[in-house]
């Protein structure tokens, strides 16, 4: 038996705000979360900007030295085994569970599962291995593994929340959050779980950001107002971001959900370790599969939250994929990449942007493309608003792509669509 999948809770701890209200305000007013940062104190590094979560100081490798905004605190025994992005995840999941109204009994009844997405914490891995090597490989911190490897979010959150259903982490680079959500949809649609908690998060520090500079993937602009400019001809790389987002899915909810998750699709490029297929071949198929999975056609889509990260190759490939899918629709969906505001949250991005699609539907807004002043010719014919507008959004499509050519798309729809 197939079940409808309702999105009943959202939680945000991101560069563009902590909490639904702050994030919505940022989308409406195009308030950027990108800041000048000093990733390595005392050393000049090529990357000057990042999407950071305001008010959290989680730069130490000792969680007991971390500081948080007023009103946010954590139990010491919870902190000992988590990476920096674990605190963002705890904040986000608390908000999402709260606004979904799930009780502790429901969370622990075996019918609630947890999917997470995170690439782990390179900073923690580096620290613990360096310390182990300093002691001639004699002395390993017992929390070194659970606080650092990919999977750290599902280890920690499942134990903290008392999850007794499905518990799994997803690793497909920048498509991880989208895979976590897509497979959570399946768990509910197929009747395996009644509720799914989906959480994605990433650190934002020298260890998580600077390795991408070696790939020449990052913007080296020092102006936070210009560095991330998806679809603009002047784009020169992405701006990395940290944070966390949580989403609650429920089977056939008895009250009106924030939005419905109607379906999803995925397809890989079969092309390159890191570069997208130049014509967006895999992303085209992933979008078509997602739309078909929801029982819709491309003409039904009102809004697309693009993956576009502000890289030269990636944004062009996505523009061509969007032309493939929507070129024959009239007038075609409005399309924006919100990474101009948030930066690129890597494993986090797919879930963040699915949550932004849910807000677009729930708040009747079309987020604008921040920093887009001179659109790439490849986008000709695509509707790329530069300001956020008020408009009913019945159907939204969320795109994401990751290394290895993974492409994952979701379709969300308004409760009003029935």
């Amino acid at each position: 038996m197939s079940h409808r999948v309702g999105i009943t809770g959202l939680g945000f701890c991101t560069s563009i705000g902590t909490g639904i209200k702050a994030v919505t305000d940022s989308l409406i007013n195009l308030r950027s979360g990108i800041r000048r940062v000093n990733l390595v104190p005392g050393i000049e590094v090529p990357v000057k900007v990042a999407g950071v979560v305001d008010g959290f100081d989680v730069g130490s490798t000792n969680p007991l030295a971390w500081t948080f905004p007023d009103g946010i605190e954590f139990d010491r025994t919870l902190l000992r085994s988590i990476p920096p992005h674990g605190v963002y995840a705890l904040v986000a999941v608390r908000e999402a569970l709260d606004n979904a109204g799930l009780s502790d009994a429901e969370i622990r009844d075996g019918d609630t599962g947890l999917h997470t997405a995170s690439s782990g914490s390179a900073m923690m891995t580096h620290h613990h291995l360096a310390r182990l090597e300093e002691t001639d490989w004699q002395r390993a911190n017992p929390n070194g593994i659970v606080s650092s490897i990919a999977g750290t979010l599902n280890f920690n959150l499942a134990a903290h929340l008392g999850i007794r259903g499905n518990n799994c982490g997803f690793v497909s680079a920048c498509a991880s959050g989208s895979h976590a959500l897509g497979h959570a949809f399946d768990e509910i649609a197929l009747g395996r779980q009644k509720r799914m908690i989906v959480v994605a998060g990433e650190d934002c520090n020298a260890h998580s950001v600077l390795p991408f500079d070696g790939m020449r993937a990052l913007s080296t602009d020092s102006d936070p107002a210009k560095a991330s400019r998806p679809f603009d001809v002047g784009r020169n790389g992405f701006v990395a971001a940290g944070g966390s987002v949580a989403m609650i899915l429920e089977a056939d909810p008895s009250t009106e959900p924030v939005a419905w998750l109607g379906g999803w699709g995925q397809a890989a490029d079969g092309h390159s370790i890191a570069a997208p297929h130049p014509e967006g071949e895999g992303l085209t198929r992933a979008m078509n599969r997602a739309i078909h999975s929801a029982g819709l056609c491309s003409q039904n889509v009102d809004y697309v939250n693009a993956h576009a990260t502000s890289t030269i190759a990636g944004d062009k490939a996505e523009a061509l994929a969007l032309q493939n899918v929507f070129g024959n629709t009239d007038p075609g969906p409005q399309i924006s990449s919100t990474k101009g505001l948030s930066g690129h949250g890597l494993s986090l991005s797919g879930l963040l942007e699915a949550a932004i699609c849910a807000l677009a539907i729930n708040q009747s807004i079309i987020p604008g493309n921040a920093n887009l002043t001179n659109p790439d010719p490849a986008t000709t014919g695509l509707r790329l608003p530069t300001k956020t507008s008020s408009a009913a959004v019945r159907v939204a499509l969320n795109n994401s792509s990751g290394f290895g050519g993974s492409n994952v798309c979701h379709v969300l729809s308004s409760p009003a669509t029935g």
Partner: protein
Amino acid sequence: MNDPLHAHSPEALREELTGFPESTIQAMVELKSNPSPGAIEESVLRILEFYLPSGSETQIVGTAAETRLREDLGIDSLTFAEAAFKLEELFAIRIEHSELVDLETVGSLRQFIESRIAS
């Protein structure tokens, strides 16, 4: 008696114990200049108290020797390993897995401190 914390300056001790109660940090700093067996035992037990489950009002210092560490105080295996790692870092010792397994009560813990750290 040798300085049991020879690898640490007072500043390094404070860094190593970031997040611990100030009274525990102070006791460890004072231990450097006055490393009597009694002071070592009390300091180590104060450090272990930090690893008790949250909300626990238990004080290991002054607790009866037969009090069981796992069953009565709620110290789980990961917490035990975490506390052992901290003692290894502070006192530059190596604690074998078999030694941890044998630590069942507060009394056996005191004997362990006496033989492996305070001696």
